[in-house]
């Protein structure tokens, strides 16, 4: 993967929820080179720095970006119109490492469980990952992909139908209990881990608030049979690993979200 600076024309920006938007544009290069967990560094008008957005999904040569209005940059982007130009550097970042089942697991056709855990808008990069999984693993009668969606309430649950269409098993948790279980994805995760067959290797992939990662990590203590990759965010400068601005604290010192991440092994963090 080699990042490139490209200009694209906005194909569509649609409002998905009150403050969540889905942007799409055509870029053969980005569509071909992007991997789940990669991000795009997008320059919008009237801001100084670029803003990082994960690749939400790829369809043919079309790229989709799902984002929530969080500040000035995302607010401006949400007002872009079809045909307007965006300057993008990408794809960037390390992406999720997709752990393939070991040969003996494949023979047994059991023993591996992939769980995607999305806190709110954290579903953005996980859709692309789910897309990738359903394209590759399920063809081999591999176990279903489970995805846990957390949201404040029923209205804010994102991507549920689409993930179901992909063939994922979707469970929802809402803080007010208006849909799925009342609580957070942590409750759902605990259930998934309790109800699995003994000897199963579990791969967790997550994106969401840092507090959620911390809670996941609490559950994983002493669980060698569960590994977990989490996608972090941080205020970012260059996105290319040169300015050292987007660091986070890890067990091995400060690491750059743009270059060492955005995906980290949760056990390298705590």
């Amino acid at each position, binding site marked *: 993967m*080699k*990042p490139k*600076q490209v200009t694209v024309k906005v194909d569509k920006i649609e409002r998905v929820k009150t403050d969540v938007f889905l942007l799409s544009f055509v870029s053969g290069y980005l569509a071909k080179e992007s991997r789940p967990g990669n991000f795009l560094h997008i*320059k919008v008008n009237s*801001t*100084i*720095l*670029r803003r990082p957005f994960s690749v939400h999904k790829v369809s043919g040569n079309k790229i989709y970006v799902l984002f929530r209005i969080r500040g000035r*940059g995302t607010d401006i982007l949400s007002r872009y119109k079809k045909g307007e130009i965006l300057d993008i550097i990408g794809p960037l970042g390390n992406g999720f490492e997709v752990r393939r089942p070991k040969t003996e697991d494949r023979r047994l056709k059991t023993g591996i469980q992939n769980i995607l855990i999305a806190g709110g808008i954290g579903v953005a990069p996980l859709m692309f990952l789910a897309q990738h999984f359903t394209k590759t693993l399920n063809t081999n009668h591999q176990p279903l992909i489970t995805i846990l969606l957390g949201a404040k309430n029923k209205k804010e649950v994102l991507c549920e139908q689409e993930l179901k269409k992909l063939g994922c098993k979707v469970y929802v948790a809402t803080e007010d209990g208006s849909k799925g279980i009342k609580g957070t994805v942590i409750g759902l995760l605990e259930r998934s881990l309790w109800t699995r067959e003994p000897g199963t290797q579990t791969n967790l992939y997550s994106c969401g608030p840092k507090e959620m990662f911390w809670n996941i990590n609490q559950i994983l203590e002493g669980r060698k049979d569960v590994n977990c990759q989490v996608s972090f965010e*941080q*205020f*970012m*400068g*260059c996105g*290319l*690993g*040169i*300015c*050292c*601005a*987007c*660091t*986070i*604290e890890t067990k091995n*010192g*400060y690491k750059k979200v743009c270059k060492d991440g955005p995906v980290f092994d949760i056990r390298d963090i705590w």
Partner: protein
Amino acid sequence: MMNRPKTNLGVTIGKLRLANPIICASGTFGFGEELRGFVDFGSVGAIATKTITLEPRAGNPPPRIFETECGVINSVGLENPGVDKFISEKLKAMREIDTKFIISVGGGSIFEYSKIVQRLDETKDVDAIEVNLSCPNIKNKKIVSQDKKETYKVVKALRKVTSKTLIAKITPEVSDIVSVAVAAQDAGADALALVNTFFAMAINIETAKPYIGNIYGGYSGPAIKPMSLYRVWRVASVVKIPVIGGGGITDADAAIEFLLAGATAVSLGTVNLVYPNKAKEVLAGIIEYMRRKNIKDINKLRGSMNV
């Protein structure tokens, strides 16, 4: 390009001869090698590296960067691998890039500054040394260039240990920047670089927490351009040594303003984070301006503000 008229873009900074006057500022271009394949180095006169210190530095607690209305606050805190690793690991990769390198150095004392400059003086492939006397992000350390006597002492000590081109990078956060600049010149600096960032902060009113992990940081970007331009003009009008001028340059027009105000070379900083190839566009704009104004030599442009 057809019938390209002979235009001289070369400038001289001490013993350093640059093919063009564009310098990518310290901290905004890494060590250059990270950008191979992405940047056209032919348009970059020189790269000022990330500041190197004697020992490795982990840098400041995150978050380290925050964008405000017209500028960017950063507090990276000189994260760097230390001089030994820099020489053994970075220099080799940098050598393959066809541009000049100005090695930015930082220190907590004259001893540290001297040691590191000595190391670099003994190192081939080091074209010039920029003494960072102005980082705003080191806790419990005074900014050397806020004090003209300290500035004189540090530069004087470094002048003794290197014959390489020595550039003093000074802070705009001082009541009389001209006297600091003159002190650096008198102590033997070959050139001055200004400005470094301005102190700044921002607070998230919902959490009541500062947006920067270290509470405050250095402000850069378009917001500071008029202020840095003023300081470059003030200094360049007085000193006899070359001034590398910058602070908030985002395009060729801004770069030309700094040349008109008296800068020998211009530095691109924050803009590199957004457009790593900005030097190419800025250089093209300067050439176009020189043609339009029928200026054959960039050195004729220097300080030619019409007053």
